[in-house]
């Protein structure tokens, strides 16, 4: 896929940071508002796909490699299951929420009616892990498909 016109590229460049920040917001507030790791990750990945469409796959290929993405994806999944194992070690059961009701990050107990981001225990952390996995995974899929169509055109 070749890059598109300067107008499209400029608009994509303006849109990309906004989309990314919105996606990251959805991931970070996964335990408070609708959405979460998967939904936010899909939003960020769609922003990346926009860049890939506007600038062309060869431009993207020079910046990121597909196997780096699959490594990031594995890291996301490992983070998720690692947290579950930590629950086993520290909380006494697999997936146990050992951070809640402690003074650590995200450890506070939520107060009724007030959306406090510093709550939820391991849930936000698991959302981050899922978000990382979905961003890397979906973008890798888009990239691989774009490269495959690219080869057919040549």
């Amino acid at each position, binding site marked *: 896929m070749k890059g598109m016109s300067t107008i499209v590229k400029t608009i994509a460049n303006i849109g990309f940071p906004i989309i990314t920040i919105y996606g990251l917001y959805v991931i970070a507030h996964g335990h408070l508002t609708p959405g979460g790791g998967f939904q936010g990750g899909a939003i960020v990945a769609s922003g990346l796909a926009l860049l890939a469409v506007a600038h062309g796959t060869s431009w993207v290929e020079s910046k990121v490699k597909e196997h780096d993405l699959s*490594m990031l994806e*594995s890291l996301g999944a490992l983070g998720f*299951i690692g947290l579950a194992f930590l629950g086993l070690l520290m909380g006494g*059961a*697999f997936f*146990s929420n050992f951070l809640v009701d402690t003074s650590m990050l995200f450890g506070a107990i939520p107060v009724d009616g007030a959306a406090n981001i510093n709550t939820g225990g391991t849930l936000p952390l698991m959302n981050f892990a899922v978000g990382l996995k979905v961003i890397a995974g979906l973008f890798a899929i888009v990239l691989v498909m774009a490269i495959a169509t690219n080869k057919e055109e040549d």
Partner: protein
Amino acid sequence: MNIVDMLLTHAPALTIAIPLLGAFLTPLISRVSEKGRNIFAIIIVGITALFVFLMASEILANGPMTYVFGSTAATVQQSTVIRILFEVDALSIFMAIIGIILSFVAVVYSYAFMEKNTGLDKYYTLLLLMTTGMLGMMLTGDMFNFFVFLEITSIASAALVAFWTNKAKAVEAGFKYIVISTIGALFVLFAIALLYGQYDALNMAKIAQSLGISGFTFIDKIALVLFIAALAMKGGLAPMHMWLPDAYGQAPASISLLLIGATQASLYGLFRIVFTVYGEVISLPAISIGWILVLLGLITMLIGVIMAIIQTDFKRLIGYGAVAELGYMALAVGTGLTIVANADPNITLQTAPFAMKAITGGLFHVINDALDIGLLFLVAGAVYYATKETSLNKLGGLARNMKYTTIFFIIGLLAVSGLPPFNGFASKLLIYESTYQLNPILSIVAILSSILLLAIFVKVLHSVFLGPALPKYETVREVPKSMLLAMAVIAGIIIVFGLFPQVIVTNLVEPAANALVNNSGYLQWLTGGF
């Protein structure tokens, strides 16, 4: 609490968690060393096997185990059970033992069999994910969790069926498999939603209890039909078996082996839902679920063997043989179910002792089928590895160069057609004896299918291994040792089971059959607590 006790307490969760962790570590280890990754996968499945056997010894001695995710105890509030539970009884662990044996053999076999392929980090990741899904389906005590693991298994196995993407037929088989699986899974999801809407519960034991209180409403009947249709489809019962020979035939041989486990996990789900979840109401009048299963089993056996006769592709032929074997399980368990689910108070398990025998035979046949058909698939894979050919018309005279593979094929052939002293004989005899007492025609069809299976596989033996040496296969060598080892493990188990069937039946199969028929053990934790 010492370390063994602690591991035992967490064994149900670790059985799922360890292959899952291994699956995601595989791509990272793959970067360091290719060989290390293959050995790592073997070690991961080995550790999982240890946990399965640890649980088995505990459950057979002390009854069902429950494990609550995320907390040390489940919260039961009014009518709802909060948190996901794993509930492992003798039946679950029996299935898990089958699954882990298949998985272990598959991963050992892959070491040499898949060596020359690229993209193996994805292969091993998917293989471990498939193991996770399969074991999860067998161990879970939660309806929605069952659906999730069903999906994990489907997606991982569809990708693995189409692993050789350069072959158009493999891609077609994979596509067919994912379409069928998705339709099946949606049916299951819809049925779960129907039950959830009525009883506000996803826990299997809780739903079973609520069903017992509410009776058998119209919606429950719809849900039951959806479950049976979808899981019979995923379990490869005729007339919904069309995906099975394609998928089994086109997948790499090690994956065909694991697919057997995945198919049987769906059959397990079918039995679990009919006997346990609907256990309280299944004997209400006007239901003949047992006869439906018997009928499905008969059709499956006949279609399987008749279609196998005309096949010219080695693996596709074994695929149809596998369909026929699945029919035996449905037939036997269905025969038991006609007695268990009977409204007539004069016909019970006590007055009709053959019902228990039929269920025992059917469950024993689950493990025997996995081993026999599995061994045949591994042999077909070995022949493909050595000659790059699966067409029966082109193969011939391989016994001269591949003597061990030939011996393994003969063992598999005799076992699958139910000849003594192999394991197939033990379970098929139980099935013949018990189904005869329900209706003689059932056992006549079953014996006929076995005879046809023998005829089919003798034909294969002749056209692949016997006959004159073909010039183009002069340079064929015996397959690598790790593949022989994988086949030898299965052949060894087949012979041990065939020589001492009574040991296996009393220690493993009968507890499983009792757990299936008697659902009060499964529901015990609800009333008795932990």
